[in-house]
């Protein structure tokens, strides 16, 4: 096969992919990019969502919210609310939770080979959903805390109004850590139970 033939095949496939993108009413620039670089760009337009790293995305949202709180508090008396040690603690708990959700996702993906969901996989899913829910709640709390800090800064008031929110944020962070140690043994148990039970 010559280089000329390869080039013709590349362009022909590019035209096909670009036509499909055009039919799906994608923006003109995307259609052009699919035509020119379809081997790497076509997957960006794929309508079917591949299983994503949900835990990473949720943890990323928490980290982003944490940065915004730190930005809002920087250079004021509120800066002590979240010092470096506190930030490190939150990040550590997030990493642990992310890893746990990933491990559960992996386990659940394996267990889909069985026809009916077992009791263990149902419980694993419940742990996963609770972790994700806790991270989403943490994002909302941090956003509320940032708002309170900005209001307090502009009004010149003290940090007292924000203390309740900070306590709540800490309770969630500690809750993530406690859930980790409490459910760690169960997750392992459930995994063993799952692998020990014969496929239906």
């Amino acid at each position: 096969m010559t280089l000329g033939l390869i080039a013709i095949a590349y362009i022909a496939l590019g035209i096909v992919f670009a036509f499909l993108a055009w039919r799906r009413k994608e923006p003109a620039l995307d259609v052009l990019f699919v035509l020119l670089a379809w081997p790497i760009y076509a997957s960006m337009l794929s309508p079917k969502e591949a299983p994503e790293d949900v835990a990473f995305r949720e943890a990323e949202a928490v980290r982003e919210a944490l940065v915004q709180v730190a930005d809002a508090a920087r250079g004021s008396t509120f800066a002590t609310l979240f010092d470096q040690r506190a930030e490190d603690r939150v990040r550590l708990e997030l990493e642990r939770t992310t890893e746990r959700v990933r491990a559960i996702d992996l386990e659940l993906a394996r267990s889909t080979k069985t026809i009916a969901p077992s009791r263990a996989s149902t419980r694993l899913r419940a742990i996963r959903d609770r972790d994700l829910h806790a991270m989403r709640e943490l994002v909302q709390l941090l956003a509320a805390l940032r708002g309170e800090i900005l209001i307090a800064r502009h009004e010149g008031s003290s940090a007292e109004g924000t203390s309740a929110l900070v306590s709540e944020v800490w309770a969630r962070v500690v809750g993530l850590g406690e859930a980790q140690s409490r459910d760690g043994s169960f997750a392992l148990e459930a995994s063993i139970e799952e692998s020990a039970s014969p496929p239906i």
Partner: protein
Amino acid sequence: MSTPTHTESTFAVLLRDPEKAVQACLSGVGRRELARTALASFFVGTLLFGGVVGCFRGELQLLFAALKMPLLLLGAVVTTVPAIWALGATEERAWPMRSAASLMLVAAGRAALVLAALAPLLWLAMDLIGGYHLSSFLAACALGIAGLAALSVVLRGMRGMPSGTLALAGLVFGLSLLHSGWVLRPWLVRPGSPEIVFMRTERGVGALGSLVMSATRGAGDPLGYESEGAR
């Protein structure tokens, strides 16, 4: 008083915040917009750099080199994406193909921006110093610097994977870049070469042999005066 955070444009993220760009590739949030910006930057940067490389000979070579430079890097990226995806998939983590593709696109986009930034310097150096070997050496150095910018993105994206996986991914990219560069030659066109062609078709000593020969010749004649008339 701190300033509230504002939403950065995707171009600013691509240019200034590789960590955030990598996170977008892996998490999927804003990935498509970032990939679009990276590909646009890639085409603009490589066309510009190719044009500057082609300026060494001028005439039609300016157009040829400007067209071939995006092809060179696109070929290497297209070959590397499946390899990186396959290597990453051996690890137990979520690693869809589009994450690998967008990561390589962002890396290539950043490299192209570095090339665009270095293009005026290369142009100036070729104009002031001239010489075939020195110009080709400087162009290779610019590509190397741009490659480092791209590598930093890929390494961030594949953080946590074993070093052997990263080394293999780098090897695939390096070899495909070398091969694409060899297939698509000439780039500068030797001063004494009588004609300008889009691609050479004759068989030679191969990419590695040519590199050794060029380095040996270049060491004795960095300005390339003795290359006059040579092909």
